[in-house]
């Protein structure tokens, strides 16, 4: 049994040797510069062993970090669907999904669109603040994840945002608000789940507006974080 094993290993090494010599020949004809390294490995050992390849330490360290970063889950910014490409569905629904010149006077539950109360959501990486204001911008009620009892890092989670939104929207319903338009600002985990929570709490959402402040020539931002 052992002998047969040894024999088979020998055959494998032979095959390996042949393969390597043939590849080295090919290399010598095509890429003369590669000849040296490949040829030497073939003469030293029948199979290519990893010890003949030189890798420097810092490089492997960098790769380790890259692997680590690749394995970590992506941060939830509430921007699901950002990279999605579905052309057909966009074309199909184009007619009534976007506002036009008649939208401000369009009636929703007997109230024109421009007179509807607004729910402002400010989603930042560390917190989510929701407020309901009338059409002139006077804030009627305000809730944030911190006020809801979530503290420190737990404030900046989608669960906290959803719980806050549900409590705010049930409060709003009890005060007689039915339909709102939603204005979202900033990127954070609470961006999408807050809107979902508003609906779960009983409010009827007419439209979603993005109000993130973006400038193409901003004042100089703060310096980058060192990793």
């Amino acid at each position, binding site marked *: 049994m052992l002998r047969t094993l040894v024999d088979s290993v020998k055959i494998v090494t032979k095959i390996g040797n042949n393969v390597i010599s043939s590849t080295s020949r090919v290399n010598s004809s095509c890429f003369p510069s590669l000849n040296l390294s490949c040829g030497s490995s073939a003469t030293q050992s029948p199979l290519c062993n990893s010890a003949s390849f030189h890798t420097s330490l810092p490089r492997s360290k960098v790769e380790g970090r890259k692997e680590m970063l690749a394995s970590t889950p992506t941060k939830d910014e509430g*921007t*699901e*669907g*950002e*990279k*999605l*490409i*579905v052309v057909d569905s*966009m074309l199909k*629904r184009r007619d*009534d*999904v*976007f*506002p036009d010149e008649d*939208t*401000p006077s369009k009636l929703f539950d007997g109230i024109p*669109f*421009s007179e509807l109360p607004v729910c402002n959501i400010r989603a930042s990486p560390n917190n989510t603040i929701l407020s309901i204001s009338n059409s002139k911008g006077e804030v009627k009620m305000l809730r944030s994840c911190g006020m809801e009892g979530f503290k420190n890092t737990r404030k900046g989670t989608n669960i906290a945002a959803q719980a806050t939104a549900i409590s705010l929207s049930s409060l709003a319903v009890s005060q007689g608000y039915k339909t709102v*338009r939603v*204005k979202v600002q900033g*990127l954070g985990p609470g961006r*999408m789940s807050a*809107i*979902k929570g508003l*609906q779960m709490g009983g409010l*009827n*959402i*007419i*439209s*979603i*507006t*993005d*109000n*993130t*402040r*973006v*400038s*193409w020539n*901003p004042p*100089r*931002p*703060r*310096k*980058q*974080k060192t990793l």
Partner: protein
Amino acid sequence: MTSRHAAFIARTVFVKDNNIEDACKLLNRILGREGILDQYRRTRFYEKPFQLRRRINYEKCKAIYNEDMDRKIRFIMRKNRTDPYPGY
């Protein structure tokens, strides 16, 4: 907190049949396509001039590569034959 774009006209999506997820996805997709979210993320921290240069050069190279690759794919996929299933 006023913004330069017309509020509730620009960057606005109506919710159809209480389907919030679709509306959000559509809005996010448009913002992502237009590069608004990218610009927002980029301007959270100062981008040093060398980083700006490297990013712009990388984007130029990528655009050239993509254009070429697109042309190649179209060349390979081109066909000049009668439709085998007329009427479908």
